[in-house]
């Protein structure tokens, strides 16, 4: 697996915080714009299509899992 999912930041809380704070004070639409740009910047930094595809698959699986759980809870 080329995508690294082990913890890469010495201080993961700082990294999470940096992203959260970037969204502070933004509207939903502004936040979505920021995310779109951020994804593109980071994707280019990674610069590896296989890693990008794995990352997309991982992120997408999580969303699917979440929506399935939601459906099960509703049933």
């Amino acid at each position, binding site marked *: 697996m080329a995508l690294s999912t082990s913890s890469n930041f010495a201080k993961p809380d700082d990294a999470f915080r940096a992203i959260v704070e970037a969204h502070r004070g933004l509207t939903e639409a502004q936040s*979505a*714009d920021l995310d*779109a*740009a951020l994804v593109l*910047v980071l994707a*280019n930094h990674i610069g590896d299509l296989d890693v990008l595809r794995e990352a997309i698959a991982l992120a997408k699986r999580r969303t699917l899992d979440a929506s399935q759980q939601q459906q099960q809870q509703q049933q």
Partner: protein
Amino acid sequence: MAANTAQAKTQFGYRRHPDQERSGANVAEHPVVVVGAGPVGLSLAIDLAQRGQRVVLLDDADRIGEGSRAICFSKRSLEFWDRLGVGDRMVEKGVVWSVGKIFHGASQLYQFNLLPEEGHKRPAFINLQQFYAEAYLVDRVEQLPEIDLRWRNKVIALESRNDGVALTIATPEGSYQVRASFVVACDGARSSLRQMVGADFAGQVFEDQFLIADVKMTAAFPTERWFWFDPPFHAGRSALLHKQPDDIWRIDLQLNPDADPVAEKQPENVRPRIERMLGHDKFEFEWISLYKFQCRRMAKFIHGRVIFAGDSAHQVSPFGARGANSGLEDAENLAWKLDRVLRRLSPESLLETYHIERSAAADENIRESTRSTDFMAPVTRQEARLREAVLSLAKDTEFGKRMVNGGRLSVPSVYDTPLSSGDRDDWRGGPRPGTSMPDAPVTEQGGGSSYLTDVFIRQGTRFTLLEFGNGTAADVPEGVGSIRVGGEGGLVDAQGLAGKRYDAEPGTAYLLRPDGYVAARFRNAARPPLDAALARASGVS
């Protein structure tokens, strides 16, 4: 302007042909009938005729179509037309360009040069109205007695047989029949032959509408392709401005999906938009057309003895100049193969590689032009958001600029094909098998300057061994042309570009196919591997 010497004939007469007197068991039999005298059908007929084949070329009209239609012809197409003897005329009349600029709103995002290096005979692109291209091709056809061009001959029925095809053809004087060993359908996107063979034509329909206007104006404006995202004169949509010969400018405007086609096409509605775009009203309309487009292709380009080429086989969006250019690539790919099959030098299965190579090229063209279209007309809110992010990042970053997609312009496809022999030696560069030959300047022994593409034509546009000097010439198989760069009596690579572009060392040799594609390459061209590569490239083994 003085009388335009390049102005060519566009109206042609129907003439009765002796074939029309024949019927029943007595109908005329022809090796090849090409249906459709557009750029693809005309070019294919010329290529076949130059290879010595007799060709009947049918067209249901009696004149060359109106409007500029295809206007961007690629370097690859010009090199093909050089082989057909019409390249100079096209380039002399055409507008040469290689620089494109992309704007977002009122500001320029970046510019690109499609041919940043020197030492190619032909430019990246010329712009030329399709009717000029067709007229010059018709002039060339008329010099070739092998071609029998019949206007107002419309194929109305087709019957496939094992060893050929029977066609019923309607004319102003009634219908007649002919038989052909092979029929090539170059009859356009609405191909009636495609319907006659019952082939599907599936793909994606795009909802966005585009308006094309050709306007005449004498304006000092750079000869470049200008593309706008969200321009001030056409908020929220895209626009394209491109120069053609005769002071004609092509303008493409993206319309809203719900725009009323009839109203949008009215000159009084088009005019204000263009005034805002150009900043003045000193122009006249030559042609206005509105279109939606589809990206689709036939599943199989060959149906028995009926072969499809150009728009009849595949359709793309216009962004990327991939329509006419890919059709011309079809023609050059097919001509030499069909010639070999008709001469029984290669088995009929060689034609299957036409489908393999050109349907893969069609897939690539569809993929590229679909991506461009999606970038110009994002489908969902999130797609639009990502597009906006790319456009805004493009102002400051190189990667953003490279993601902006205002049309990826046509380059020749690289074929993954059974005709290629895989590399066995070590290569650091140069065209791998399946790639179209790069051009380079060379000097002849007498001191005259030339290009590799021209030398290839003088070798007869056939299988040719391109060698880089190593004392004595390689032992070239019979019937194979020979180009030698360097060595005794060879061409001189004065600028070193040929050697560089072909990653040449002394003894390096490339086997070129009759369409100028690399079939195999060797660090040392010994006969057994060369013979094997030649057999493979001919479809014999």
